[in-house]
């Protein structure tokens, strides 16, 4: 008997009586999603910037980041700022100072943005970069994680992730420090 068969038969033998799946409660949407998103993101160490359009994002990022290191931009309209993630080997992104990525949508209750492989090209990009800029449409703000999974639905992706703020840890210094292994800062542009 293989270990797989052994485990499955033990689970089957000890299976408790099945219970009905509890009702899935869908919370109502709430007012002022933008205000909530902004304040939560600031609370977890990120920065939210409301911009008129991509031109506004471009001029902000240009002022902040141009000449400060390698920039990778996954948004065609912001191509002027940096290269596309054309490299095949993820290790080649180790010296990226700023990555600019689009997100499918953002969640107001926890200021997370949802991105998938399709938008990133390279899965490692938002983690390996020193600093992260995300562009998302204001119209794509949802209230809670329940609404988020409503949008994701049965969509197909090889890899998808919620990113909420810069990476952080309190495991090393016993007090919270921003910038563990992932990006040291996160700026979200809402347009």
């Amino acid at each position, binding site marked *: 008997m293989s*270990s797989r068969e052994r*485990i499955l038969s*033990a*689970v089957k*033998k*000890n*299976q*408790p009586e099945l219970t009905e*799946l509890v009702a*899935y409660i869908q919370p109502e949407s709430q007012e002022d999603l933008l205000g909530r998103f902004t304040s*939560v993101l600031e609370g*977890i160490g990120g920065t939210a910037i409301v911009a008129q359009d991509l031109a506004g994002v471009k001029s902000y990022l240009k002022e902040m980041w141009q000449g400060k290191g390698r920039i990778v931009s996954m948004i065609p309209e912001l191509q002027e700022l940096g290269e596309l993630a054309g490299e095949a080997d*993820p*290790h080649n992104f*180790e010296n990226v100072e700023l990555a600019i990525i689009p997100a499918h949508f953002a*969640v107001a*209750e*926890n*200021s*997370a943005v949802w991105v998938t*492989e399709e938008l990133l090209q*390279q*899965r*490692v990009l938002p*983690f*390996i970069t020193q600093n992260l800029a995300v562009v998302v449409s204001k119209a794509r703000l949802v209230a*809670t*994680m*329940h609404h*988020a*999974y*409503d949008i*994701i639905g*049965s969509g*197909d*992706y*090889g*890899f*998808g*992730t*919620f*990113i*909420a*703020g*810069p*990476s*952080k*840890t*309190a*495991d*090393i*210094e016993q007090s919270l*420090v921003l*910038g*563990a*292994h*992932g*990006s040291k800062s996160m700026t979200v542009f809402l347009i």
Partner: protein
Amino acid sequence: MLTAAARIHLREKFLTRRAAITGVNFAIAETGEFVVCTNEGNADMGAHLADVHIACMGIEKLIPQRKHTGIYLRLLARSATGQPVTTYSSHFRRPREGQQLHIVLVDNGRSTQLGREEFRNSLKCIRCGACMNTCPVYRRSGGHSYHTAIAGPIGAILAPNLDMKQYADLPFASTLCGSCSNVCPVKIDIHDQLYKWRQVLMKDGQGGAMKGLSMKAMNFTLSSPGVYRTAGKAGRWFYGTCRLW
């Protein structure tokens, strides 16, 4: 400063290693994907750079549908550090092109615990750590005193399932104050299970001779007023003599 030093040091490891082993927070039966949550980004740095990703999960990590992940992601970080959600909640469904992805499903006593009706509730644990942060015993003694991988109140009810003899002491190291059950987001009756484990362990002869003997002596003393008073007098005399010294 220390964190920055660790970041630089470990970055080199992430960039040069060919295989990455991660845990799994939730696995979704409906879609076959799994979710790994970190605040540091260590799981993602490892998994997306390595040629081989090996994800190890307990068989109890399975949840029915993708939409249920939202509920658990909310619960996990709120109950762990008080954050609204973990910084990275990564959903893996397929390996990236050219990468190998292996998922190891671990039993390690879980199927046995499933068969123990009084204790199977402990398998609901999502490892948030809320019971540890609230536990007066854990906060004084720290993780290593539990001499098992999972510390705190939840560790004390999981460990005896693996080895009753080796972990017989853990369910007794509790005040049964119930704070753990109070904060548990998935409503495990932790302090009740600690109490139940004591009975199981004593019946199994894991309590030790001293514990049995002292309980018998207590029973003898407390069931007779005469003996109780004499014992009280003897105690006071003994205490008084000690103080004179």
